[in-house]
């Protein structure tokens, strides 16, 4: 048990649970679909973090591993990204993609919960089994799901946040939303960075990336939803012509 493989994912989990609470609170006030999906995605993030912390503290558990792989490895990014799709795309397009995501998610649930597992294979990873990875899945066709879901997630969530930031910047309006979206984009990309470095053999990279990602996503959401007090004269108005 180390700080990195127990405390870090535990803090990620708590952070995203609290974050989800605020997103669901805002959803109740505004009743917009994208907030509901972001909230659900954040609950997935929190479940993933909890499972990692559980594994770090208590070791292997079949159900915990399956839940981690389903929520933490496959679904989280895609469901959060789907929220952004509802925010930015036409409703008809968003509904179609939502239907595909639901079908894919149900298929993912079936594949993950019917997969054969071998915990001894975790030790074949670069971190000698101290951190969770997909290596324990024996059945084929399960691990190949993650890049599909996660590519959809990164394109929609990170791409959507960058696109939103660019739109606000181009119009020079709502500075807090420009900054908030940049923070959200960085936060959303950090777990992917962590995953990449983890595959290169850097211990703790995934969990650190997830923790920093959770913090930046939360900070970005707070920034984007809290108007900034720009001092008089700071915002340069067009010269009279």
């Amino acid at each position, binding site marked *: 048990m180390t700080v990195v493989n127990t405390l870090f994912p535990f803090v990620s989990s708590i952070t995203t649970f609290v974050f989800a609470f605020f997103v669901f609170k805002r959803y109740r006030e505004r009743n917009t679909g994208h907030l509901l999906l972001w909230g659900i995605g954040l609950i997935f993030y929190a479940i993933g973090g909890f499972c990692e912390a559980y594994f770090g503290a208590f070791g292997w558990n079949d159900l915990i591993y399956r839940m981690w792989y389903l929520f933490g490895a496959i679904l989280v990014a895609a469901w959060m990204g789907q929220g952004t799709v509802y925010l930015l795309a036409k409703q008809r397009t968003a509904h179609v993609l939502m239907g595909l995501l639901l079908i894919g998610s149900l298929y993912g649930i079936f594949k993950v919960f019917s997969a054969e597992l071998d915990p001894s294979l975790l030790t074949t990873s670069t971190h000698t089994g101290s951190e969770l990875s997909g290596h324990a899945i024996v059945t084929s066709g399960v691990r190949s799901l*993650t890049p599909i879901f996660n590519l959809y997630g990164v394109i929609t969530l990170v791409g959507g946040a960058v696109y939103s930031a660019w739109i606000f910047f181009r*119009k*020079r309006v709502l500075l807090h939303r*420009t900054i908030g979206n940049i923070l959200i984009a960085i936060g959303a990309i950090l777990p*992917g*960075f962590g995953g990449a470095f983890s595959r290169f053999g850097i211990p703790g990279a995934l969990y650190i990336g997830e923790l920093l990602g959770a913090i930046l996503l939360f900070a970005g959401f707070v920034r984007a939803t809290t108007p900034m007090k*720009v001092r008089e004269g700071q*915002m*340069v108005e067009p010269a009279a012509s």
Partner: protein
Amino acid sequence: MSEQTASKRKYPSFYERTIPVAIWTLVVIIVIMLVITIGVGIGYFH
């Protein structure tokens, strides 16, 4: 506010300098991550 007027508004200078750099850096990183993920199968592959 017309589009023309909007385009002449400016954020405070610090943000005018840093935001485009941040956005373009993110775009480059996204492209690299996508290429790596698709090409090598890491990053978003667990």
